[in-house]
């Protein structure tokens, strides 16, 4: 590959220092995510999937090892610089959506753009386009409490895409949804990948895993299959 990977983890470990005994969530994990890749991460509950995703998404930092986002070492960045990276370079979708309850769907999608300093007119165009993309143009004025789970997750995906990240990380995006609404989300991720965004999705859902081009299997804080 001539292009640098979008994100790369080198010998990454994450230990949570707990009162009783430290918990090793990740131990010596190495992985590269190339531009435009579609990766699914599977494994039993508690094996470290979320922790890996948080570290790849600069939400968390490893106890040891290096994370490089577009060849920049995340470990040497300040908290504010990592925040900027999350805002502009990486989209994150959580199992529990984490939309802002007092904002409408439109405002939730517009917020990261405003924070990134996108001009008002561009913001408006982009927000309309994104809500259209996730099929919620008619629900723009609705607050999260007025939306179904599937709709909230679609708003969350639109928000994650707001600043045109080259990488989308999704942690069990269908975990709280029934099969049919989950299907919508899968279709959306598929389309997103086709449009050129690299997607890493953590899932228990075989249907989601089946769509991905690479499958990573984790166990006890390590990638046991699919790492390359």
């Amino acid at each position: 590959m001539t292009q640098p990977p979008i994100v790369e983890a080198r010998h990454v470990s994450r230990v949570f220092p707990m009162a009783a005994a430290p918990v090793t969530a990740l131990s010596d994990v190495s992985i590269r995510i190339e531009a435009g890749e579609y990766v699914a991460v599977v494994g039993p509950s508690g094996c470290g999937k979320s922790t890996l995703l948080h570290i790849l998404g600069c939400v968390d930092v490893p106890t040891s090892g290096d994370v490089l986002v577009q060849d920049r070492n995340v470990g040497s960045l300040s908290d504010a610089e990592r925040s900027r990276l999350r805002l502009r370079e990486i989209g994150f979708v959580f199992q529990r959506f984490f939309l802002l309850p007092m904002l409408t769907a439109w405002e939730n999608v517009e917020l990261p753009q405003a924070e990134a300093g996108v001009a008002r007119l561009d913001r408006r165009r982009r927000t309309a386009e994104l809500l259209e993309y996730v099929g919620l143009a008619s629900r723009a004025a609705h607050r999260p409490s007025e939306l179904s789970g599937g709709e909230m997750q679609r708003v969350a995906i639109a928000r994650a895409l707001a600043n045109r990240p080259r990488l989308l990380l999704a942690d069990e995006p269908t975990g709280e949804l029934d099969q049919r609404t989950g299907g919508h989300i899968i279709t959306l991720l598929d389309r997103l990948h086709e449009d050129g965004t690299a997607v890493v999705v953590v899932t228990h859902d075989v249907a989601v895993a089946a769509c991905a081009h690479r499958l990573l299997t984790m166990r006890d804080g390590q990638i046991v299959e699919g790492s390359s």
Partner: protein
Amino acid sequence: MRRTRIWALVAMALSAAVALTAASAAQPIEAGEAPGVLVSRQLMESRALGIGDLVRLSADPTGGRSRTFRILGAYEPTPDPMRFAQPALEARLHLPDLLALSGNPSDPSASDTVSSINVALVNPADADAFARDVSTRLPGTVARPTSAPDDRAGTFLVIERFHLAIASVTMLGSAVFLLALMMMLVDERSDVVGTLRLIGFTRRRILMQVLAEGTCIAAVGTAFGIGFALIMQGAFNRFFQWRYDTALVFLRITPGVVAQSILLALPLGIAASAIASWTLLRRHPLALVRR
């Protein structure tokens, strides 16, 4: 120097005032010769007196050795915070009249007992120099400007210290309450703060937002507090002026008091919001949304 007209003040106790009776027609009085007297507004009202009325004054509660005076006018007594609870039933006489009324004929020297007089100066700023001058020329007299602290103010110093103590306890209590309230508010917003951090808002950015909000709330709160105090000041003064029938001002919100309130309230409010929001911001964003 302008001739200073000295009125002697007779502070009549209620019993003395009872001895005062409006002259009846049965007692022929040489009206033309009756000396003039000024009567306090309160005494005018309570005895239904009028200007031009003839009254008998006596220094003796039984009414003995009374003399007749003509009421030339009413005056509003200078409010005295030491005596506001007593009705100001008073009259002002010319000094010779007062001496004639209160003196003991059998002991002329005993009549000469004026314990204090007030002197109004053309230029009040001369008060210090004048007082010093009087003290050196008349050894044994105590002369002091009315603006200087007098021993009677001791009571007020104690009250003031008491007020300061109450104010400090109140401020401390409300600051703790405010902080607890902000903690609760902020804690309720921990999901929001966590989500903003996950999206990519920096700590500094959120702190600034909270500080801006805190400043607005503190400013509105301060303005409300001052406005409330100003309104209450009028109501409070009017009630107690009515209650004690005095012109005394009980409560005064001075610019100094306003400035002090602003200087205390604004930084306290801002500090409370800063401390409260920092308790959230120092935590990991995932810990904020996970609860």
